Structures are given as structure tokens and as C-alpha cells.
């Protein structure tokens, strides 16, 4: 089993506020790891550091054997929780434009996902609902053939129909034999069955982490129930 991501003592401070406090985390090939926690627990900060758009204050992180940066982003797919698409573009336009940066963009796969998600290539992004924009972000992330997908709150603020479609894409496109997913969420119930391992974050620190099945049997509860116990 290859180690795709390894973080040791990862710390991030914004002024006096700690976003991460010495987080240790690993992602191995062929597994889906969930970073779980309430808003402000440091989930997004971790993923942003992993992709190299935020710099850590301390500690170290290595993804696919590289330090986060532009070089790494050629090989890792990232989806933000934010509404960060260029709204003036059309669906087809942003797909083509994004594809032009990557060698691992899979046009056939992209077309298939777009059709499955019911997206119209001619639609302006500004005219799409939030749910449809969420679908588009998912389509962009999974149109690439990469070893590691970093998904930041892929289901947050999305209507149930779109949530279900997005989950279907994640399940359909995930290939345990050659890829891994690290996703952050506070909507544990929706992704519970996907997760191989979980990391519970609170106020930037790891509260609990381990194999999902082992945690379920240790606590005699679902991951969602453990989440409620920890943060309730």
C-alpha cells in the first residue's frame, strides 16, 4: 500500500488564531479518508495546505512524494467548498479551459459525467443553481485521472437531489485500485458508507482517528453517531 499523503505536526496560525495544531494524517492508496468536524475545525485549511494554496506555519506535509505546489497540482485533483467558478463562463467553456492545463484530463470521462449530472455545456455558470454549480465542480474534479482527489465539503449547501447525484459520481468514478479520496465534511451521514478511515478534527486538533469499521465496533455506533457524541 503506497502512502500518498503524509502530514506531520502540521500547524497553521492566522495571527493569534490557530487553524491547525500539530495535525498528523496519512492517506494510503486505495482508501477514502474523511476529515470530519464542525465548521471552523480546520478541515478546509488542511486540504488547502495539501494542495499548496495555503502555506503551513509549522510541521511538514508531503503529497505523492512532493511538497505542495504547482508541480503537485498537475497530479492531484482538488475541489473547493467555495463557490469559486468563473460565473461569466459557460459550462463547456470552463471545462475546456480547465482541461487545457492538464495532461491527465479525460475528455470521454468528462462528457460522461456531464451527461450523468444533467449539465448543459451551453449554460452560463451564473444561471446555474447552487446545486448545479456543485455538480459542475464535481464534474471538473473527476474529469481527471489522478491518484488523489481532495474534496472539500463536496455536499455542503447542496440540495438533496444534487447531493445524491454528486455521491453517485464519487462512487462511480472512484477506483480503489489506482486512486484515493481525502474528503472533508460535516455531513457525515451522507458519506458514512464511503469512508475507510476517518479523522475527527476539533479546533485544529485531531480528536480521534482510525479505521471506520474499527471505530464503529469500538464505539458500537455509526460514524455519524460518534460525530454527534464528540461534537454534540
Amino acid at each position: 500500500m503506497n502512502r500518498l499523503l503524509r502530514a506531520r505536526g502540521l500547524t497553521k496560525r492566522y495571527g493569534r488564531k490557530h487553524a491547525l495544531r500539530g495535525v498528523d494524517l496519512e492517506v494510503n492508496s486505495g482508501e477514502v479518508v474523511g476529515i470530519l468536524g464542525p465548521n471552523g475545525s480546520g478541515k478546509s485549511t488542511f486540504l488547502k495546505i495539501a494542495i499548496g494554496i495555503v502555506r503551513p506555519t509549522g510541521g511538514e506535509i508531503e503529497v505523492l512524494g512532493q511538497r505542495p505546489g504547482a508541480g503537485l497540482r498537475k497530479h492531484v485533483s482538488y475541489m473547493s467548498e467555495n463557490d469559486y467558478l468563473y460565473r461569466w463562463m459557460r459550462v463547456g467553456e470552463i471545462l475546456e479551459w480547465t482541461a487545457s492545463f492538464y495532461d491527465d484530463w479525460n475528455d470521454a470521462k468528462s462528457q460522461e459525467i456531464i451527461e450523468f449530472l444533467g449539465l448543459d455545456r451551453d449554460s452560463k455558470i451564473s444561471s446555474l443553481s447552487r446545486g448545479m454549480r456543485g455538480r459542475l465542480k464535481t464534474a471538473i474534479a473527476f474529469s481527471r485521472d489522478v491518484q488523489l482527489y481532495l474534496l472539500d465539503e463536496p455536499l455542503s449547501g447542496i440540495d438533496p437531489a444534487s447531493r445524491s447525484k454528486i455521491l453517485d459520481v464519487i462512487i462511480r468514478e472512484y477506483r480503489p485500485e489506482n486512486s484515493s479520496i481525502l474528503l472533508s465534511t460535516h455531513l457525515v451521514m451522507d458519506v458514512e458508507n464511503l469512508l475507510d478511515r476517518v479523522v475527527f478534527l476539533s479546533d485544529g486538533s485531531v480528536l480521534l482517528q482510525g479505521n471506520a469499521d474499527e471505530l464503529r465496533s469500538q464505539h458500537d455506533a455509526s460514524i455519524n453517531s460518534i460525530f454527534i457524541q464528540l461534537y454534540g
Partner: protein
Amino acid sequence: MDIRNIKNILVKEIKLAKSWLIFVPAGVLLFNFYIYLKFKDIPSMSRNAPMLLVSGIVILPLLIIAFIRGILILKSERDNRTIEYLKALPVNGFEIATAKSLMIGIESFAYAATYFITFRTMITLAQTTYTVRLTLWLFVLIWLVLTLTATFSLLLQAVGMSVRRFGRLIAAVLFLILSQAGLKIAGWLDPVLREFPHITLYVVYGAGTQAKGPMTLGTLILLAIYIVINVSLTGYLVENKMEV
């Protein structure tokens, strides 16, 4: 730096900058037309009037527009949260800064060209017995000054977006320091600049009357170096300091 990445970002910028490329030149055109209407009945303009118009009246709004444009080309990415999309692409800060600066350069070229052509036409029209000839070097000078202004404000915006606390205040202080430093350096380098070949920078109007400006090629090279420094510093900030 990957040329493909710069080209891809530039393609996006060009699509987005359509209105800047259309409306600002249109505005320049209208402004020149206004000047034409204002001055067409004056039988004889004073000796340096065309040069005065070039440097004082028409260039000022263009400089302000260039300054604003340099800010907006980066600020709009932050306001629309698209800076995260851009930075999550496999591009580095230097490529982002270079592509945006190239866009600024293209826009400045369009502004300078529109101004240059319409100004000459209008002044020639206004003084029916006069013609105005402007040298290519004057055009290059205006283009570089507009580009420098825009890349300078781009740099200041990058500073504002990279410093979490008092970003605007720090950018404003830097504006004063850097602009003064730029002038000081130009002063120190003056003896060196004088060694470069002289270029003719003049407006000819009427029957061979000339309004001249002393200039060497070194001045243009210095402006170009300032632009490169601005772009490099912006690239450094976007890559290393700007978090989304």
C-alpha cells in the same frame, strides 16, 4: 515558467477584458472628440499646446484608468472568489502575474494606440492648416508609462491581498516609498541613461514647428525594467504570500 499556462490564463483574461478593450478606447475617442469640439474654433493654438494636451489632459484619465485596471484585474479574482480556482490550477504565482501583466500590456497598447491616432486626427482637424506628426517613440513611451502604472497598481493590490492586517495601509505606504524610490533611482541612473542612443521624441505641428522632449533609449529600457520588477514582485507575492 510554463508558456502554456501563461497562454491559457491570458486567453481567459482576454475574454474577460473585452469591455475594457472596447469601452476605454471608445471613451478615449469621445474625449478626443470633445477636445476637438472645444478647440476647433481657436484659430491658432499656442506653441506648445499639442504637447500640453498630450501630457496633461488626455494622458491623465488614461493613467487613472490604467491604475484602476491594475487593481481590478486581481481584486476581481478575490471578490468573486475565483482566485482560489486560479491558484488551484497547476500554475505558479509568476505565471499568474505574467499573464495578467501581459493583459495589462495589451490593454495599454490599445489605449495608447487609440489615443495616439485620435489625438493626431482631432488636432489636425481642429487646425485646418496644421498637421500633427507624432513619433513612434512617443507612442512607445506612452504605452510603457501606462503599462508601468497598471503593473505598479497590480503589485500594490497583491501586497494588499497578501498582508492579512492593515493590507491597504501597507500598500499605500509602499506606494509612496516605491514611487519615490523609482524616481530616485532614475535620478541616480541619469548619467548612465544619457550614454544610451538619443531618440527623437517630438510633436510636429503646423509648418515644421516642433515640441521636443529630451529622451534616450535608456529611459524606455528603465521603464521596461521597472515593469519587470513589478511583475516579478507580484509573482513572488501571489506564489508565496497570497493565501486564499
